[in-house]
């Protein structure tokens, strides 16, 4: 659906995006994570044909971003960084205006549906200048959806929203992806990215890593398992230390956190070992590294390499 090959953009001497390579399937949600100034907005602008790349190629649904801007803009919905409305016009008039540029059909029904969904129905005749920042953001999402785009570019879609509204928007994004829309989600909210994204791209001028959240964790960190026992004994720890697939043992209140290679194979062996020594196991669980740890590790490694 979205393909980018060595896509890059320079502003004068500054390279904002350097050789972006990615492929996003139809119906996939790609979480696009990166620090401020990483080039996320520039990437979205290039892919949605707002600005031209300095080098490289990209296509959306087979349309070339260099040649087929008009076709791409028809099939793409974009929620820009700043909402950008005609402040003195009403909510309804703004939506009607932009929809007419997309020649959207069933307009009034869609406006009603989306404004109802985002709790903006009672503000339909209010001038946009009277809306809060969060309301404008929801309105910008509504605007991006009115022409039923196949691809959605969302730039920080929940950044100004209260928790309840943000939850609603996330649920809605999930529904959109289930209905087959391809979503490019740029966000700083790591929990949101993990919740919504099929894959995550960590980006800082170039893609540092791209994979499912689970695979990113396993690539970066050795698996950890938490084993809670009724009581601890030194012999238990010693028996674990001699196992060659156990890398590290951290003693906690009533158990151990153990770093294990290939957990699906070796966790049962660890448990057998403990049971044979008479240990009374209460609970075994995986210890997951947060996406924040994944992100921070990747960005720090990138910085170290660069320096």
């Amino acid at each position, binding site marked *: 659906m979205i393909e980018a090959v060595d896509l890059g953009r320079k502003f004068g001497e500054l390279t904002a995006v350097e050789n972006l390579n990615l492929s996003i399937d139809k119906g996939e949600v790609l979480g696009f994570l990166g620090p401020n100034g990483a080039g996320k907005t520039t990437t979205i602008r290039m892919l949605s044909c*707002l600005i031209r790349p300095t080098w490289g190629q990209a296509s959306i649904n087979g349309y070339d971003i260099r040649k087929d801007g008009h*076709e791409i803009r028809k099939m793409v919905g974009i929620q820009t960084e700043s909402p*950008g409305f005609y*402040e003195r016009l009403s909510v309804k008039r703004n939506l009607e205006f*932009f929809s007419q540029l997309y020649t959207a059909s069933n307009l009034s029904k869609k406006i009603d549906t989306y404004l109802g969904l985002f709790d903006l129905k009672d503000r339909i005749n209010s001038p946009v200048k009277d809306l809060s920042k969060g309301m404008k953001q929801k309105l910008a999402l509504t605007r991006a959806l009115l022409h039923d785009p196949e691809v959605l570019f969302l730039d920080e879609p929940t950044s100004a929203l209260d928790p309840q509204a943000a939850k609603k928007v996330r649920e809605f994004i999930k529904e959109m992806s289930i209905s087959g829309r391809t979503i490019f989600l740029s966000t700083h909210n790591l929990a949101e990215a993990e919740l919504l994204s099929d894959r995550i791209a960590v980006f800082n001028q170039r893609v540092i890593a791209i994979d499912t959240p689970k695979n990113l964790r396993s690539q970066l960190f050795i698996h950890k398992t938490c084993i809670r026992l009724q009581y601890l004994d030194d012999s238990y720890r010693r028996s674990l230390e001699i196992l060659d697939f156990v890398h590290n043992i951290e003693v906690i209140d009533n158990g151990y956190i153990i770093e294990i290679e290939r957990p699906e194979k070796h966790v049962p062996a660890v448990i057998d070992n403990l049971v044979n020594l008479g240990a009374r196991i209460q609970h075994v669980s995986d210890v997951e590294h947060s996406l924040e740890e994944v992100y921070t590790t990747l960005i720090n490694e990138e910085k170290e390499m660069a320096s």
Partner: protein
Amino acid sequence: MLMMTLMPIIMVGAPFLYISIILNVVEVPTISSGFFQRAIDSFVSANPGMSEFQPIQLFQIILFKQGAFFLLMITIMVGMSIATFSVIGEKQNRSLEPLLATPVRTWELLVGKVLAAAVPALVMTWLCSLLYMGGVYAYSADLFPLIVDYTWIIIMLFISPAVALLSLGLGVIISSRSNDPRSAQNWGVFLILPVLFIIVGPILGTFPLNITSLLVIGSVFATLTIVVFYFGVKIFNRDAILTKWR
């Protein structure tokens, strides 16, 4: 806003003011000599049927007819104040990026911007024209049919829209190339100076005020409008507008 209200009042009132000043200050023999006589001679040669009128009457007819060109100033100035703000204003309001993200083509955007400036400017001009015609009728019902004739209709219905489209096309292009509204408006005023040539042309005797010259002038403006739009579309750089402006 000042431009939208003050300019029409000045332009409608100016010919009446000039005539009353000249008739009260300048003596009739002065009108029949020098600059004034050249304007009268040029007018009579373009309109031979007017030769029977007295110089003072001819002078009034010329000045009142000139009112049509003063009204063109309303079209230009009111339209320019909207047009020069059209693209840079969207950038400032941050509505330009969502607008450029739509499938709207560059020529559609430019035509839309020009029409959005031209329609209010032309409506304002035509309303002022009605007001002016009322004033002329009240001043002299005898001279009214000589002043509001076919040339008046051509100026209002052909030259005025042609001038509006040309100058506002320039205004929108300037707006799309400027970094702030103030410089856009300064450039706008500078670039419409050639357009003002037609306002003073008949007075200076540069060209006669008759149907042929008016149709030629209108056609030149219409042709220039097409050329301006063509280049406007070519030089409209979405990328630069979104990335270079702050």
